């Protein structure tokens, strides 16, 4: 990559770290560190929540998904605005008014300590693994594109994020997120403009080419439990997933808990939903346009540069023959066959599964974007990764300190002590996520992996919070219901693997509520109904 691009990347990383650390004033106590003293304006929280959503997995994985599969993935997010409205009216006022640090803290007030601890534990495990996957997405790509050891790539992305998060807490994370959102959206627009210039036909003709291959088919109104990307799975399954993620996952809950007031918290949630569907559509469209671009310009047979280098070194004649076959037959079916053979060759040579979907956009950027813009895009990918990681690290640290350290080990201590423990927890989880990242490689479309993993627990955790709003539910019902929900999801996942993971959230939530209410009905009356909000 041209040195100017590296100057842009390094310059941006340095700016972000310095800016984040400068925002650490006001984080001398844990309320400042975890909740920014509940002082953040709604628009900053909203942009920050959006930024957390727009991770490097989106920049690389979703664009790749658009190139290979088209626009239908956008249906996944159709439930988001509905979920935001429901949460804004129900859970957000509840949790914000309860003056809790974590969503799970509330569960102890409503049920008991073991329910709190179990849900917090499930959150820690799922979120830590997800954080590692989010780092691995760009890290693996960078190591392949630039020929680095994957550890360097992980460090490039992880270390700056860990630094400003550890020092600055939520305050730093939020304000850095705001700045990075502008970089990311700017980079996406720059790529679209470049594509429209470089594609040698009019935009309308380009869209016709994409449409002819089905890549512009957005809506699928068929009802199928096995097809992930349909209107109904997105609307229903997606609503449950988003309700659980934004309502019960500490990485999101912590954002709106840091808003100045309940109305600001509700508005921040709504604002984060504002551009979600349009932004996802833009990201997918980038991928679609890259596909069109490669109809007019010869694409590499192998988008993964590391695999291409390995194949050229080990089987140059065979690779050259595949390239000749590609050049001699323009029929899509023939070219798909040649590409499949190239991928099989790469698998044989490298011993690794060869999955190209995550390398399409980075390869396009490095090979075709003007000098400077390529650096902006790479910086944007790193920025997107850092946004996601920083939010997750603060939530992991918060849950660790509030739900476990303070709850079970040391309840009383000066704030300074808890601040040191919080910063240490951030660092430890950051290192853990980096280690996970080095193992989370070649996992297919990464955007799917992240969401598939989360769906294992999210629905069941949502079910617990739904039970919390039902006066008849008691602690035993919630605790056993949670196990029943996870068991049900596990049974479907292994017994009926063709059922789309989006439906797992519905299955988990419904099972928890039904089993929880049944057990509550035959057990003792709950010690209290839904906790009344305490007036300040």
């Amino acid at each position, binding site marked *: 990559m041209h040195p100017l691009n590296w100057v842009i990347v390094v310059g941006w990383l340095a700016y972000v770290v310095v800016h984040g650390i400068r925002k650490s004033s006001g984080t001398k106590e844990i309320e400042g560190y975890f909740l920014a003293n509940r002082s953040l304006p709604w628009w900053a929280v909203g942009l920050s929540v959006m930024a957390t959503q727009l991770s490097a997995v989106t920049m690389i994985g979703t664009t790749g998904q658009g190139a290979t599969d088209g626009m239908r993935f956008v249906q996944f997010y159709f439930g988001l605005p509905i979920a935001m409205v429901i949460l804004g009216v129900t859970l957000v006022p509840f949790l914000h008014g309860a003056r809790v640090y974590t969503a799970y803290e509330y569960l102890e007030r409503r049920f008991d300590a073991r329910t709190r601890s179990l849900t917090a534990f499930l959150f820690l495990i799922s979120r830590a693994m997800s954080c590692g996957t989010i780092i691995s997405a760009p890290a693996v790509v960078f190591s392949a594109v630039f020929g680095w050891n994957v550890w360097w790539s992980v460090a490039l992305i992880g270390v700056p994020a860990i630094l400003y998060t550890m020092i600055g807490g939520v305050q730093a994370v939020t304000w850095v997120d705001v700045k990075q959102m502008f970089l990311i959206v700017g980079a996406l627009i720059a790529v679209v403009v470049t594509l429209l210039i470089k594609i040698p036909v009019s935009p309308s003709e380009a*869209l*016709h080419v994409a*449409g002819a291959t089905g890549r512009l088919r957005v809506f699928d109104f068929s009802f199928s439990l096995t097809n992930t990307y349909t209107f109904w799975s997105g609307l229903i399954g997606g609503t449950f997933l988003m309700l659980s993620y934004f309502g019960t996952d500490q990485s999101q809950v912590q954002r709106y808990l840091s808003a100045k007031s309940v109305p600001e918290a509700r*508005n921040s949630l709504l604002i984060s939903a*504002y551009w979600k*569907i349009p932004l996802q559509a833009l990201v997918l469209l980038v991928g679609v346009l890259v596909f069109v671009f490669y109809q007019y310009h010869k694409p590499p047979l192998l988008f993964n540069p590391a695999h291409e280098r390995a194949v050229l070194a080990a089987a140059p004649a065979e690779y050259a023959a595949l390239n000749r076959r590609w050049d001699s037959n323009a029929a899509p079916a023939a070219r798909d066959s040649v590409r499949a053979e190239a991928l099989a060759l790469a698998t044989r040579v490298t011993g690794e599964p060869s999955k190209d979907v995550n390398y399409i956009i980075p390869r396009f950027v490095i090979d075709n974007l003007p000098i400077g813009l390529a650096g902006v895009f790479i910086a944007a990918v790193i920025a997107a990764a850092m946004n996601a990681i920083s939010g997750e690290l603060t939530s992991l640290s918060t849950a660790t300190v509030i739900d476990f350290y303070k709850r079970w080990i040391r309840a009383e201590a000066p704030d300074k002590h808890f601040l040191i423990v919080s910063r240490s927890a951030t660092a430890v989880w950051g290192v853990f996520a980096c280690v996970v990242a080095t193992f989370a490689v070649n996992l297919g479309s990464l955007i799917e992996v992240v969401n598939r993993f989360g769906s294992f627990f999210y629905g069941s955790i949502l079910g617990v919070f739904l039970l919390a709003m039902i006066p008849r539910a008691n602690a035993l019902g919630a605790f056993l219901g949670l196990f029943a929900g996870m068991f049900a999801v596990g049974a479907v996942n292994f017994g009926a693997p063709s059922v789309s993971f989006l439906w797992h959230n519905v299955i988990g939530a419904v099972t928890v509520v039904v089993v929880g209410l049944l057990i509550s009905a035959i057990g003792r009356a709950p010690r209290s109904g839904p906790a009344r909000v305490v007036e300040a």
Partner: protein
Amino acid sequence: MTEPTTGQTTGQTTGQTTAPDDAGRRFRRTLASVMTVQVVTLVLLWLLQRAYTP
């Protein structure tokens, strides 16, 4: 579920009666604009599909 009046003291009377109304109005306005953006986006995507997908 009771919406909290967090941050408001009982000493504020006339201010307190209008503040929740203002907050509610702003929420509804934000909600309307958010849903409008989503609907417009969905319509545009639908038109895109209709125009370019055989």
